[in-house]
């Protein structure tokens, strides 16, 4: 059983994953809405998204809508599973369940 995920645990990435996982698997969120939702800068969010994308936790799709460039982000099945495990591990710590948490 996996535990705390160091990559997800960082506060901005944690909120990005929480936001994406709370949507339907089919949903893709606009980058700018995610930025406003988390109250972070474009550069900051972009850097965190790259890390999550490299880990295979999210998909980033750049496209054009009405001739304007837009970026849509969605959680992958791997990302959803890692996030679920991370939340389980947090709950285990909170409720005092003894478990190994790989670093």
């Amino acid at each position: 059983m996996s535990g705390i995920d160091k990559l997800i645990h960082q506060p901005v990435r944690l909120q990005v994953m929480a936001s994406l996982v709370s949507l339907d698997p089919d949903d893709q969120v606009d980058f700018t809405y995610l930025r406003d939702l988390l109250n972070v800068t474009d550069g900051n969010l972009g850097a965190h998204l790259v890390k999550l994308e490299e880990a295979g936790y999210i998909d980033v799709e750049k496209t054009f809508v009405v001739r304007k460039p837009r970026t849509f982000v969605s959680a992958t099945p791997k990302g959803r599973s890692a996030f679920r495990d991370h939340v389980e591990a947090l709950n285990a710590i909170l409720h005092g369940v003894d478990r190994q948490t790989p670093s």
Partner: protein
Amino acid sequence: MDISKEQARESLSQIEEAAERTKKMMACSGGDAIFILWGFIWVLGYLGTHFLLQNASWPRLMGAGWLWSVLVVAGVIITLVMVRRHMPVRSSVRSRLGKRISRFWWLLFAYFYVWMVMLHPFIEVNGPGEAAALYIHLSAVAATVAMFAYVVVGLWLDHFMIWIGLGVTALTVLGLFLLQPYFCVWMAVAGGGTLIGTGLTIRNRWRQPCPASTS
């Protein structure tokens, strides 16, 4: 990686807040701007109609008809552009639902037009004064048809819209039967104002600042 109970609690709280705000964003999904847009259309349309129906004459009645036609067509076009440009979330499921809702609106107003054509032979008006009174009744019917659409869309999407639909319908009925001389002003303030207020409320509800998000 060592995490204390306090850190775990804080992380879970951040997760809960982010998920909650995302749900609010989904419930909003650009709806705030659409409510505000249609609120302003109602304000402009009804205030313009009130002005045009004073000292009613046939050209002024025609003018009121044109005013609403222009406002509604402009409103539909702007709404479609806003939906395409500003939807925060896209998915094939939502896209299908959006198309279904759009078809429902078109069909409802097509049916409304058919009903008006069917009733037309029984409508007699003697002079522009009576025509103006009929116009007010028809605009009340059109407003309740639009609000009926809100209620139905609310049944599919968000119960919040049901209450808006029922509330504005009640205000329309109240205005028509109790405040008929000022019906259009009433509808501009009560109907248009409710739609604008709803849009602003939705906007403020989900745009509250997030808890500290350090990098």
